[in-house]
C-alpha cells in the first residue's frame, strides 16, 4: 500500500477529477465452482486428507447442532439460539487455516470455528444450558461461548467491540514474541460500528498481526446489505485503511482456507493486519427470535441454497475418494444421537451456587459485594420456595 501522508509527494492534476464507483472492482477468490468442480486455472490448496475430513466433519457438525438446538429452543428447553447454516465454509475454512496458538475473537455465528478447534458437544450444551459445568459459569445467554484452553475468546453481545480488541491482542502477541496471530470475525452489519473503523485503522497504523474476517452474509437481522453500505462491500474499506485485503467466495471452503492461510503468512511475515471479506449467505434466521419470511423472498433463499457450501465440498471430497456416502449417513445419525444425549444430560446439571453471583466482578469480592451477597442469601433462606434454583445452597 502506498502511504500518502503529509510527507508524501502527491501528483497534481489540473482536472476536476471526481472518482466514482471506486478505484478497483474487487473480485472474489474461487477454487470450487458452485457445482463443486475446480475452477479453471485455480490452484488447489495443499490440503491433507485428514484436514479435509476434519473440516467436512466440523461443517456437518454445526449443521446438525444448529438443527437440534433450534428445535430445542422451539421446545422451550433453551432460551435462545443462533444458527450459522449456510456459513459453515467461511467459519470452518478460516479456522482450519490457523494454528491452535492463534487467538479467535468471534462475533457470535462462528460455532464452526469453535467446533473445528475441538469444543465438544458437552461443552456446547453446558454453555447453552447456563449450568455450573460451563466455564463461563452460566452468566451469558446461549451461544456466548468462550474457552481459554482453545484460545477462543469469550463472546460479547455488543457488535464490533472485538475488532479493536483483536488489534490490541495481536499487538500483545507480537510484543511477547509469539508466532501467532489473532483472527477477528464480524458481519457486514457490525462493520458499520465505529469500533470497526477504529480497530482496523489502529491495527494498520500499529502493525498488528491480525486477520479481520468479515462474513458478508447479506443481512444484519432484517436489514439487507444494500441498506447497510453504499461502497464496494467491506473489502474496499481495507484498501482505504492501507490494509492488505482480499475478497473470497465464502461458500467455497477451499478458497476460504487458501485465503486465510495466505493472510496468516502475510500477517506474521510483515506484522500487518489483513482484511478478508467472505461473500456468503445466512440461510438461517438471524436468531430464534426472528422470522426471515418477513424480509426476504423464498426465491432468494432457494437460489442461495443451491450454493450450499457443504454440498460443494462433498462433491470435491467424493472426487478425491475421501467421502463414503452410506458411512457418512451413519456418522450423522450417531452425531444426532450424541447431541440429543448430551442435551439431556446438560439440562439436568444445576446452575452455579449463589455465591458465584458476586465472584469475578473483581479479582476478589469487595466489602459491598460481600454484604449484598449475604443479604441476598438471608432473603433466599427466608423464601426458599420462591428461589428453587439456589435455595438448596443457602441452608
Amino acid at each position, binding site marked *: 500500500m502506498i502511504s500518502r501522508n503529509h510527507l508524501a509527494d502527491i501528483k497534481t492534476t489540473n482536472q476536476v477529477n471526481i472518482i466514482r464507483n471506486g478505484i478497483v472492482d474487487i473480485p472474489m477468490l474461487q477454487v470450487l465452482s458452485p457445482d463443486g468442480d475446480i475452477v479453471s486455472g485455480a490452484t488447489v490448496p495443499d490440503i491433507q486428507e485428514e484436514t479435509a475430513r476434519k473440516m467436512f466433519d466440523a461443517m456437518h457438525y454445526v449443521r446438525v447442532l444448529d438443527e437440534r438446538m433450534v428445535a430445542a429452543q422451539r421446545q422451550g428447553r433453551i432460551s435462545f439460539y443462533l444458527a450459522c447454516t449456510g456459513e459453515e465454509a467461511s467459519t470452518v475454512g478460516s479456522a482450519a487455516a490457523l494454528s491452535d496458538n492463534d*487467538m479467535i*475473537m468471534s462475533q457470535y455465528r462462528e460455532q464452526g470455528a469453535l467446533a473445528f478447534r475441538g469444543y465438544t458437544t458437552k461443552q456446547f450444551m453446558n454453555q447453552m444450558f447456563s449450568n455450573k459445568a*460451563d*466455564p*463461563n*459459569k452460566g*452468566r*451469558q445467554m446461549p451461544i*456466548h461461548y*468462550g*474457552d*481459554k484452553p482453545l484460545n477462543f*475468546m*469469550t463472546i*460479547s453481545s*455488543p457488535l464490533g*467491540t472485538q*475488532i*479493536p*480488541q*483483536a*488489534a*490490541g*491482542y*495481536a*499487538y*500483545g*502477541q507480537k*510484543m*511477547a514474541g509469539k508466532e501467532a496471530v*489473532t483472527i477477528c470475525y464480524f458481519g457486514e452489519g457490525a462493520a458499520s460500528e*465505529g*469500533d470497526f*473503523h*477504529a*480497530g482496523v*485503522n*489502529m491495527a494498520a*497504523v*500499529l502493525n498488528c498481526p491480525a486477520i479481520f474476517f468479515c462474513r458478508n452474509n447479506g443481512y444484519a437481522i432484517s436489514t439487507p446489505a444494500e441498506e447497510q453500505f453504499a461502497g464496494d462491500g467491506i473489502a474496499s474499506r481495507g484498501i482505504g485503511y492501507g490494509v492488505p485485503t482480499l475478497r473470497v467466495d465464502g461458500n467455497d471452503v477451499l478458497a476460504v482456507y487458501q485465503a486465510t492461510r495466505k493472510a496468516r503468512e502475510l500477517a506474521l511475515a510483515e506484522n500487518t493486519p489483513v482484511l478478508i471479506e467472505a461473500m456468503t449467505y445466512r440461510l438461517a434466521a438471524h436468531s430464534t427470535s426472528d422470522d426471515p419470511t418477513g424480509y426476504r423472498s423464498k426465491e432468494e433463499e432457494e437460489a442461495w441454497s443451491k450454493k450450499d457450501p457443504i454440498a460443494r465440498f462433498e462433491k470435491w471430497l467424493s472426487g478425491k475418494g475421501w467421502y463414503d456416502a452410506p458411512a457418512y449417513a451413519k456418522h450423522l445419525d450417531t452425531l444426532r444421537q450424541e447431541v440429543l444425549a448430551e442435551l439431556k444430560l446438560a439440562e439436568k446439571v444445576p446452575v452455579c451456587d449463589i455465591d458465584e453471583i458476586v*465472584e*469475578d*466482578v*473483581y*479479582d476478589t469480592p*469487595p*466489602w*459491598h459485594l460481600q454484604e449484598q451477597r449475604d443479604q441476598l442469601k438471608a432473603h433466599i433462606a427466608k423464601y426458599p420456595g420462591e428461589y428453587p434454583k439456589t435455595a438448596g445452597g443457602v441452608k
Partner: protein
Amino acid sequence: MTQMNLLQAINNALITAMTEDEKVMVFGEDVGHFGGVFRATSNLQEKFGKARCFNTPLTEQGIIGFANGLASQGSVPVAEIQFGDYIFPAFDQIVNETAKFRYRSGGQFSCGTLTIRTPYGGGIAGGHYHSQSPEAFFAHVPGMKIVIPRNPYQAKGLLLASIRDDNPVLFMEPKKLYRASVSEVPDEDYELPLGKADIVQEGKDITLLAWGAQVDIIKKAADMALEDGVSCEIIDLRSILPWDRATVCESVMRTGRLLINHEAPLTGGFASEIAASVQEQCFLYLEAPIARVCGLDTPYPLAHEKEYMPDELKTYEAIKRTMNY
C-alpha cells in the same frame, strides 16, 4: 525525596512501572515523542522505545478497545484519554467490555491489568469540554475501580498500585493541580492502598469529605470554620469505587455531621451514594442532614466558572448551616 509537581510524580510512577515490568505499555493521543499534551508521558518513548510508548490514532473507543485486547492477552496497558470530557466514545468499551470481561468469561479472561489515566476537573478556564468530572458515570459500573489522587505523593503511590492491581482502574487526575501542586515524593517504589480513604486532618464537630482538587478546598473551608471554633475532620476518599464506607462512617459516628464536596453536578453525583449509605449506617448518630456542596446541574460554564465551583466559601456556609441546624 524529590520535590515534584503532580505531573512529574505521574511521569515518575510510569517510569518506575515500565522499568520494573516490560509488559507495561503506555499509549494514547500524543503520548509518544511529544509526551502528551500535559507532558505526563515525557521521555518515556526515548527511554523505553516506540513499541512500549506510542501515539494512537485519534479514537477513544479504539484506544480502550485496543487496551482491552492487550490486557486480555496478558500485557499491562496504561491507556491515556487526553481529557475526561472525551472518554465518552469509549463508554461502551469501558462499561460493556473492560468491566465485564472477567465476569462474563467466568474468570477465564480479564482486563485486570488495564489502567486508564485521564485528566479531569475544572479550574483551568476549559469550559464544558475541558472541565468535567465524570466519575459518577463510572461509579455505576460493577467491575471498575476508580481512583483519584489529591497531590504528587498520592499520585505516584496510587498510580503504581493501580497499574499493579488485578482489576481495571480508571485513574482520574485533577488537571488543575498538575503544575500547581508540589510536594516531596519518594524516589523509590511505593504503593498506596486502593479502596482506602485517608484522614487528612482529625476533628470532632463535622466530617468534610472530598477527593482530588477539592480536598484543598475543604481544607480552606475548615480553616475558616476553625476561626468560629468549629473543629473539622477532613477525609480524602481517594477511591470512588469501591469506596471506603467504614472510614467515613466511623468518622461520622464521632462527629455527628457530614459534608460532601465534589465538582461534578449535584444530581446523581457520587455524594448522593455516600449520603444514602451514611444515613443508612449512621442514622441515629446524625445531628444534622448530610450536606452536599457540589457543581450546579448545568454544563460546566466558562465565563461563570468561579460562580459554578463548589468553593471554600460555599463550603464554609454549608458548614455553618450544618452546625446550626
